[in-house]
């Protein structure tokens, strides 16, 4: 989805020129083909020459043309077939099959052959025989045909337009082309997140109930302290060994386990690297979306509230939520991520205002390719929020070679970037490259230690 597809930006401009109107599609109708003209011309010429020159053999040359044409034209269709094109399923996952259904109704009492030529988004690889095929449709029947392809990358993709043309009478008659736009057959391809799991607790767990160790006492297995018995303590909490040694009643006090808020901030200012889809190399947007999807899935499914914010031209926000349904909503939100080439620079202040809970964990997915990205991370860290910065610059991405100085310039730039990352770490920001499962355990442990220090 681009900026132009945003409803807020599709308002009429003050341009006095009337917008260009697209000519309405002509109705589908039957017409003769060059083959019919050819057959009639050959038959007529040969027969006339046969009579003129008294040549029986020329009549024989004309015979199959006349006979075949008469036979084929016996069953002529009187009405043109009508086609309709709709998406079969509105969503699918990366690497799976995105499909749409083409239904062709043949009201005529004669069989027709329908030739279907479908186009699709470049990220949908049409299956062989599912984008360019010819089917025979019997008299007064309808047929549903599947147009399907493999979705190679997340996002909103379009199947279509589809061009449908029908033949009858052995190719002597054909319809005009019916063009079916693909606006009804858009498919959301959800990203397939990388596998991510983490055994570390998160700082500031202050919700109602969850899996993270909080700072408050309560019922759980995490030992907080051994203290003197007070009225109201449960008897099963009594620590009998300590009580026997000290001749006084002691109980084990435990820390409660609660949930927390996780806010994912996606830096979508610049795209770098060419995306190869699910089978190829990942670009910055690919890595950001898949990593964010993995982190969101992990925490949302274990009961934490996960929200998302775009740090980019569109500045979208997804409210925090937990559970399987919210995880699907997050994937759908991530699938509509777009990095327009003519992006307006986002504002750090505006993004900070979108942040809700001060005590939630802020995970910033950024390639650290601009001053604003670094500025956002620094601003969050200085405001006392726990920040985890995930470096989403793919290792294979490098600037295009413009001269023999390019490698040296790139090396200097990488050194400068490494320096920036070290400065961020000095500021208390945990910076880690995204490498999938358990890659964030160390930095999360650092964050928790810093919280309880």
């Amino acid at each position, binding site marked *: 989805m681009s900026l132009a597809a945003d409803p807020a930006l599709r308002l009429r401009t003050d341009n006095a020129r009337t917008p260009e109107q697209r000519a309405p599609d002509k109705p589908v109708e039957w017409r003769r083909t060059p083959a019919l003209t050819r057959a009639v011309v*050959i038959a007529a010429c040969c*027969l006339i020459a046969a009579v003129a020159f008294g040549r029986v053999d020329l009549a024989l*040359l004309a015979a*199959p043309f*006349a006979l075949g*044409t008469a*036979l084929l034209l016996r069953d002529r269709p009187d009405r043109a077939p009508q086609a309709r094109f709709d998406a079969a399923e509105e969503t699918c996952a990366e690497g799976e099959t995105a499909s749409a259904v083409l239904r062709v109704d043949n009201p005529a009492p004669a069989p027709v052959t329908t030739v279907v030529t479908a186009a699709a988004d470049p990220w949908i690889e049409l299956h*062989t025989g599912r984008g360019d095929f*010819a089917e025979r449709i019997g008299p007064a029947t309808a047929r549903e045909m599947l147009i399907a392809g493999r979705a190679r990358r997340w996002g909103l993709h379009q199947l279509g337009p589809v061009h449908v043309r029908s033949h009858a009478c052995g190719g002597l008659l054909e319809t005009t082309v019916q063009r079916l736009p693909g606006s009804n057959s858009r498919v959301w391809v959800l990203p397939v997140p990388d596998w991510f799991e983490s055994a570390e607790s998160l700082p500031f767990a202050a919700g109602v109930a969850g899996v993270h160790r909080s700072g408050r006492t309560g019922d759980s297995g995490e030992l907080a302290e051994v203290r003197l018995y007070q009225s109201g303590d449960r008897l099963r909490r009594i620590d009998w060994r300590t009580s026997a040694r000290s001749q006084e009643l002691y109980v084990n006090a435990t820390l409660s386990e609660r949930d927390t808020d996780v806010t994912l901030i996606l830096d979508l200012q610049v795209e770098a690297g060419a995306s190869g889809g699910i089978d190829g190399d990942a670009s910055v947007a690919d890595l950001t979306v898949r990593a964010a999807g993995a982190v969101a899935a992990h925490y949302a499914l274990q009961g934490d509230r996960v929200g998302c914010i775009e740090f980019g031209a569109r500045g979208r926000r997804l409210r925090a939520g937990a559970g399987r349904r919210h995880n699907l909503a997050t994937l759908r939100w991530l699938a509509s991520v777009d990095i327009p080439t003519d992006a307006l620079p986002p504002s750090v202040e505006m993004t900070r205002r979108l942040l809700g809970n001060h005590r939630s964990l802020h995970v910033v997915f950024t390639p650290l390719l601009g001053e604003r990205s670094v500025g956002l991370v620094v601003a969050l860290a200085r405001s006392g929020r726990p920040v985890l910065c995930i470096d989403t610059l793919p290792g294979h991405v490098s600037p295009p070679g413009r001269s023999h100085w390019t490698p040296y310039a790139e090396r200097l730039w990488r050194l400068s970037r490494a320096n920036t990352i070290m400065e961020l770490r000095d500021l208390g920001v945990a910076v880690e490259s995204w490498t999938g499962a358990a890659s964030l355990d160390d930095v999360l442990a650092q964050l928790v230690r810093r919280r309880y220090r």
Partner: protein
Amino acid sequence: MSDLQRGLFEAVRDGTRLRVVGGRRRAVSWARRLAPAAVLLRAVIGLAYFAAAELAAPTAWATSAVYVGLAAALALLAAARPAGGAPLAATAAVAAVWLLTTSVYDDHGGIVRAAVVALPLYAGHATAAVAQRFRATTVIDSEIVHTWARHLGIVSGSTVAFAGVLSLFTAYFAAISPAVAVGVGLVAVITVIYVLARSLHNRSPR
């Protein structure tokens, strides 16, 4: 070489390499997607027109390299572009060669030879009509091929029967006067054209 020249040279080299790689990838993809039935139909078109051209000409012409080359070129063109004017051109060329041959050589096979030429000519025409909107990668329903083959069989049988009737007619009524023959021929021509015109303008009888 200055930096600017080197940069331009590298850009041109990279662009060329990208185009070559892209073209090769497209060719491989096209070859992988080739549909057997569509290729078969095009092969039938080419072979039919080539066979008709070879059968229409006398043996001395049919074996000459120039004639074979021309016939093959026309047949290939018709197979590559069945929706264009190539099938009509190929049919007209075969008919012209047939007229020329029968004018020069009196004993060029007679009615049987004419039937043998007419059958591949019509096979090429009917196949071109069916395949005119198919691409080489179009996957074709087997029922379409069955219908096409059935139609070709019916027309071939009828043509052979018609050739038999014509042979009998010319054998037993050789002494018929030219005026009567022309009259019968005119009636036959008008009948055929009338039947074709009616079938063009009438709705389906069902």
